[in-house]
C-alpha cells in the first residue's frame, strides 16, 4: 500500500477512547438459519481490519448489522457508542455496499452533491472534484447510473462513501470490478482515511487487502474463526487458499 496522507476532507475527528465499532455476542438468524452467532469484535480508531471468510460465512450480514440495515436477533453492536440506525450512528458510519445502487434520474455529480449535503458538508465542491479526479470519473459527472459500466459504478459508490465525514467505514468487497490503477487509488484513499483516524472494516477475499490490513478477522459458518495479525500461515490453516482468493 502507498504511503498514507491524512486527508482534511475526511473529518473522522474526536475519536473517543472507546472503540468506534464494537460488537458483543452478536447474532442473526433467518427462519431458523443461523447467519451469525456469538460474534464479538472491536475495531479501534485508525485501524484497518480485513474481514475474511468463504461465501455465506456471515461477512455481509455483519456489515449490514453494523450499518443498521439488519437487526440483530441476539447480542449488541455499537457505532461510536450508539445503536446502529440512530442518527448519531448514521452520522458516524459510512457504508460502501457490495452492490452499488443509484437514483435512476440523478447523475454521478448530483449523487455526490446530494450525499454530501445530507451529511452536512458545507463546501463539498473541492472534495467532489478531488474524488472524481482521483477515481477517474472525469467526463462521467453527468452520466446516469444506468450509463455506467460495472467498474464506473463501483468507483462512484466509493466516491459516495468517501465524500462525507465519518468515523467508521465499512466496505464490502470494495475492489470488485476495479482495474489495477483504480485498486491502487482505492488503497491510497483507504490509507488516508485510516491516517485521519477512521476505523475501517473491509470485507474481502483478496490477499493484497489482507496484507495491507492491521488485523484480520475471519468468520466461518457465522462464527468468529480468527482474530489477529494477518499471518498467511495461520490463515491457510483455517481456510482453503481458494476461499481467500474468491475462486
Amino acid at each position, binding site marked *: 500500500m502507498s504511503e498514507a496522507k491524512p486527508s482534511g476532507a475526511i473529518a473522522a475527528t474526536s475519536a473517543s477512547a472507546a472503540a468506534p465499532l464494537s460488537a458483543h455476542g452478536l447474532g442473526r438468524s433467518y427462519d431458523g438459519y443461523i447467519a451469525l452467532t456469538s460474534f464479538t469484535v472491536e475495531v479501534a480508531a485508525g485501524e484497518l481490519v480485513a474481514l475474511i471468510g468463504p461465501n455465506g460465512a456471515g461477512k455481509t450480514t455483519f456489515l449490514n448489522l453494523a*450499518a*443498521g*440495515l*439488519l*437487526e440483530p436477533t441476539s447480542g449488541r453492536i455499537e457505532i461510536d457508542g450508539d445503536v446502529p*440506525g440512530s*442518527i*448519531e450512528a*448514521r*452520522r458516524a458510519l459510512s*457504508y460502501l*455496499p457490495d452492490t452499488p*445502487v*443509484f*437514483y*435512476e*434520474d*440523478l*447523475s454521478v*455529480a*448530483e*449523487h*455526490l*452533491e*446530494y*450525499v454530501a*449535503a*445530507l*451529511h*452536512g458538508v458545507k463546501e*463539498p*465542491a473541492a472534495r*467532489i*472534484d478531488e474524488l472524481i479526479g482521483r477515481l477517474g470519473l472525469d467526463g462521467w*459527472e*453527468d452520466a446516469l447510473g444506468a450509463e455506467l459500466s460495472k467498474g464506473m459504478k463501483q468507483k462512484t459508490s466509493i466516491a*459516495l462513501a468517501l465524500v462525507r465525514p465519518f468515523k467508521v467505514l465499512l466496505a464490502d468487497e470494495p475492489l470488485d470490478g476495479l482495474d489495477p490503477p483504480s485498486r491502487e487509488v482505492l488503497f491510497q484513499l483507504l490509507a488516508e482515511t485510516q491516517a485521519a483516524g477512521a476505523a475501517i472494516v473491509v470485507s474481502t477475499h483478496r490477499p493484497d487487502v489482507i496484507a495491507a490490513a492491521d488485523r484480520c478477522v475471519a468468520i466461518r459458518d457465522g462464527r468468529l474463526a480468527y482474530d489477529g495479525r494477518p499471518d498467511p500461515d495461520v490463515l491457510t490453516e483455517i481456510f482453503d487458499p481458494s476461499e481467500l482468493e474468491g475462486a
Partner: protein
Amino acid sequence: MSGADRSAGAVLAAGDPVAAMKAMRAARRRRYGRRRDVMEVLYRVYLGALAALFALGFLAGALHEVPADPSSVDGIRAHAPAIIGLAVAALVLAGLRSGARGGPLAIEAAEVRYTLLAPVSRRVALRPAALAQLRVATISGALFGAIVGNFVFRRFPGTAVEWIGALAAFGALVPIAVLGAALFASGRRLRPRVAGPIGLVLVAWSSLDLALGWNSSPATLLGDLATLPLQHGASAWLAALGAALALALLATGLAGIGGLGLEAARRRAELVAEMRFSASVQDLRTVVLLRRQLASEHPRRKPWLRLGGGRASASPIWRRDWQSFLRWPAVRVARVVAIAVAAGAIAVAGFSQTPVLFALPGPLLFIAALDLIEPLAQESDHPTLRLLLPRPSASLLGAHLVAPAVGAGIVLAIATVIAALVGGDPGLALGVGATSIVPGALVLVCAAAVSATNDPYEFMLMPPELTQAINFAPIGAASLGIFLPLFAAWKAEGGDGARIGAALGTAVIPLLLGLAGIGVLNWRANKREREAM
C-alpha cells in the same frame, strides 16, 4: 468543472440536510414532469376514461333507479353497517399484514441507501411519501364514494347531499383506516404473528356484530357512516366516533412512521420495483409470484396431509399437483375459500338485486384459479426441465389441468352451497350450481393456464391495444364463462326447472371456451418445443 456548474445548485445551496433532501426531491419532480411524454399522458388519460366509463356503466346498472321497498330499506338499515364493517375489518387486517412486512410505503432502494442512512430524521424523510400515498387514496376513495352516493340516493330515503356526503366521507375514511393500520404496524415494527392476530380480532369483533346485530366494532361504526342517511339518533354519533377512530389510527401511524425497519423496507423496495415493471408489461404470472414473495406466502414445510400410495404412482402428475395443493399456506387456503364464499353471495345478490353483479364472480374465481394452476405454471417457468422429459410438452401441460380442474370444481361447489344457504331458493342455487360446475371449472382452469403460460414479450411488436386484448383475454373468458349460466337462469321465465334448464343450455359456451384454451395451450407448447429444438 466546479460542483456549482454541474447541477441547478439547489442542493448545494440548501442550508441543512433536510433542506437538501427537500431541494433534491423538488428538483427530481420537476425533472420528471419535464421528461413526461405528452402522447403517453394522453394515452393514459384515454385508458382511464375508458375504465371510468365502464365503472359508471356498471354502477348505473347495479344501482338502477327503482326505489327500494320498505322491507329492503329496513334490512339494509339493520344489517348493512355490520356487513360493510366486516369488509372494512378485512381491509384493515390486510393493512396490518402489509405493515408488518414493511408496507404500505414502497421506497426506492437508493432512498433507503442514501437518505434513510443519513443523519436525517426518518419521520421527516418518510412523511412526504406517506402523505402522497394517503392523498391519492383518500381523494380516489372520496370520489368513488360520491359517485356511488349519486346513484344510491335515487333508490333509498335521503337527499342527494346526504348520500353523496356520507359515502364520500366513508370512501375517504376507509383508506385512512387501512393506511393508518399499515403505518402503525410498520412504524412499531409489529411482527406478522402479532399484526395478523390484531387484525383477526377486529374481523371477529365485526363478525360478532353481524351475527348478534350489535353495533360495537370500530369497523361497524364506519359502516354506520356509509348508511348514515338511513340511520337515526345514536347511530349518527357512532358514525362520528368511527370516523374519529380512523383519524386517530392514521395520526398514530404517521407519528411512528420513523420507526420503519430498513430490512423490511429494502426487501419491499426491490419487490415492488420488480412488480411495477411486470405490471407495466402485463406479465400477470410474474406479478402473482412477486406478490406471494411480498406477502411471504411460502409453501408449508409439512403438508396438511401426506399422500399415501408410496413413491411410485400410476399418475405422477396428478400426485405432484395434489402435493402442491396440500402444501398451500393457510392464508392461501383462506383466500380461495373466501373467494368461493364471496362468489356465492354475489350470485345471490345478482338474483335479488341486479344481474350486473353476475359480472363479478368470474374475475374473482379467476384469481383462485391462478392459485390452482401453480404446478402447471411451474412447468412453464422451467422449460429446460420440461424439455428434458421423454414426453411432449403439450401432453405434459394437458395432464397438469386435471387436478386444478377438480380443485376448481370444489371451489365452485363451495360457492354453490353458500348460495343455497344465504339465498331464498336453495333448489335453484343447487341446480344452477350443479349444471355450472364442470363447464365453469374447465373454463376457469384453462383461462388461468393460458394466462400463466403467457409470454408478454411475444406480442410486443403488435399494437398495444391488441397486446392488451391478448393478455386480458383469459380474464374475459373466465368472466363470460361464469356470467352466462347465472344470467340465463335469471333471465328465464317460469319455475326453478326452467331456470336450471336455461343455465344448462348455456353450458356449451364455457365448454367451448375451455376447449379453445386447451387448443391455445397445445399450440403454444408445440411452438415453444419446436423453437427450443
